[in-house]
């Protein structure tokens, strides 16, 4: 009843929705972020928690201790710089493969008979019913030296000796693309599905062969879906922890395992926090870029 009356008030409804979203954002993002930011500006110490308090009150004065040492150390330590770059590179390559594989997939589903589309989408989401961890472990069985893939290739006579795939960057890429592909396909499908197919008929009528018409009409019109999907892949892929840990072995391409080790192995919370803050800022960049491009496009249209 109370919800009913709440939603019947049109003027309040908007602010309620905004307040819910804002509240979620403050509680689950802003507060944790500022906690981490605070730690990143503190000094390492041997106490529990393992960092010196930022605010000290000796009964007379309040002292605030801030240090940017952690951030400067971050830049001077090659493992952080390299794994940052490695994360960006891995995420970029994952995104590119997701686009190359996901575009035809999304297109095929959108072009299928309307009655067949729900089952095709279901097929794509069925893997999500199994635990993420188990699915990644399953890839070990496929990719290892005497795994399914190598045995199949040897049986087919394609190769004589097993390929070294497991614990290389290749196994990381395979796992990443496998996991993130649906996140690219679904938003793109949503855009393609709404596309007016008579536009392609019009292009054909105006003398354009199907393949050229696809590049001139379908591709530009689906770019918002590609951008949304690429973002949904790129941002979480940059911070991916499990896949490089499980499929990468000693190969360390990415920042998230490094963060884990700093927090829980080296117990250097301040530097790990600094690295986390830097990662968030790094991820805001592509977001800001996409957002700017989108508002520019919206402005050009208005």
């Amino acid at each position, binding site marked *: 009843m109370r919800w009913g009356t709440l939603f019947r008030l049109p003027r309040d409804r908007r602010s309620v929705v905004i307040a819910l979203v804002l509240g979620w954002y403050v509680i689950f993002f802003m507060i944790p972020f500022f906690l981490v930011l605070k730690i990143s500006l503190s000094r390492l110490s041997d106490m529990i928690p393992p960092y010196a308090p930022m605010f000290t009150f000796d009964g007379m004065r309040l002292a605030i201790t801030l240090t940017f040492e952690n951030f400067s150390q971050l830049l001077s330590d090659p493992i952080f710089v390299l794994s940052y770059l490695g994360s960006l590179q891995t995420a970029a390559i994952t995104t590119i493969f997701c686009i190359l594989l996901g575009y035809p997939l999304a297109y095929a589903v959108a072009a299928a008979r309307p009655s067949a589309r729900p089952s095709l989408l279901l097929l794509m989401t069925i893997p999500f019913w199994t635990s993420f961890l188990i699915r990644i472990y399953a890839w070990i069985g496929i990719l290892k030296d005497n795994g399914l893939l190598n045995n199949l290739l040897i049986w087919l006579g394609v190769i004589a000796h097993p390929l070294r795939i497991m614990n290389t960057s290749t196994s990381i890429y395979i796992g990443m693309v496998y996991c993130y592909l649906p996140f690219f396909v679904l938003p793109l499908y949503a855009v393609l599905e709404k596309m*007016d197919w*008579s*536009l392609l*008929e*019009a*292009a*054909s*009528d*105006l*003398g*354009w*062969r199907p393949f*050229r018409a696809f590049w*001139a*009409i379908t591709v*530009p*019109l689906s770019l918002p879906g590609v951008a949304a999907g690429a973002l949904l892949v790129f941002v979480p892929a940059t911070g991916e922890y499990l896949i490089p840990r499980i499929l990468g072995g000693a190969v360390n391409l990415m920042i998230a395992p490094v963060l884990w080790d700093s927090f829980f192995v080296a117990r250097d919370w301040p530097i790990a926090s600094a690295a986390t803050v830097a990662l968030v800022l790094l991820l805001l960049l592509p977001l800001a870029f996409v957002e700017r491009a989108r508002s520019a496009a919206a402005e050009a*249209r208005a």
Partner: protein
Amino acid sequence: MAARADANIGSPVEIRGLTKRYGTHYALRDIDLIVERGELFSLLGSSGCGKTTLLRSLAGFVRPDEGSILIGGRDVTRLAPYERPVNMMFQSYALFPHLTVEGNIAFGLRRDRLARPEIARRVDEALELIRMSDLRRRMPQQLSGGQRQRVALARAVVKRPQVLLLDEPLSALDRKLRESTRMELVAIQEQIGITFVLVTHDQDEALTMSSRIAVMSEGRIVQIGTPTEIYDKPRNRFVADFIGSVNLFEGVVASISAGIATVECATLSARLQAADRGFAVGDKVALAVRPERMTISPPEPAAPSSGCFAGIVSHHSFAGDRHLYRVALEGGAVVQVAQLSAGTDGRAFPRGEAVEVSWDPASNVLVGP
């Protein structure tokens, strides 16, 4: 345009025995049709009659099962849409939302291997034709419905097709705009001299715009003719009923002499005469009489003359330029009568009034089943 048109001898459109089946349903049945150069030809019919399938087979979007299509004397039956010398204006207009007005119009020319200045010149020409030169940089979603319709037209004619196909070109416009756009479309067609084949379900549209009309029903062409032929000499009951309103009197041919058939009409309890159209004595036929051919008048005290039927007004409505009556005749038939308001001095026959309905026997048209 001239070079391309002159290079081909033969009618812009020639269709022979075209048939299209979807499962067991016939969308088109054995269609034969010739459209002459410079015509504005309409395919008229209600939804599902096959008119859109026919238009789409001309464009190449529908592959017929049997028969052939010749455009300018060349067989294009097996050609893809992008290989045919025809262009289509889509019902939804199908303007490319990511291209400007200019970009939309130039789109088809970009594939024709034309030099840039030539493309620019032809786009300018087309923009002038639709009087939208100042809106060339607008995006489609910034245009009104009427402006979109004109851009769709320009985009299709700028390629100088041998035939322009128009799928319900006015249906997306509101009524007022639709009527003014009809005349504009006819004027543009005369100016550019391209043959138009247009699909419509709107009989007024077909009558006012076309040089000839093909009335379609259940995948067949029922009648082809000029608007006056279709209206005044409908071949059968379907055409008579579909175009405008009509009074149909069922009857049996009693005799035929000197090209005049005498029909015994049970509902009128009278014998009426009409020009024979190849019927035989004993055939079941109907006499079609248009409401505006009938005259309504006060009852004569003297005995009614022949061709004059007494009745009671059962319904009256005023449509501005005319009064519309429904009159229950003594024999049981109910007829519609239209009377021009001019000359009635604002007087009308109210409901329940006894009247007489008469018409010139020359207005009788004999139609088959």
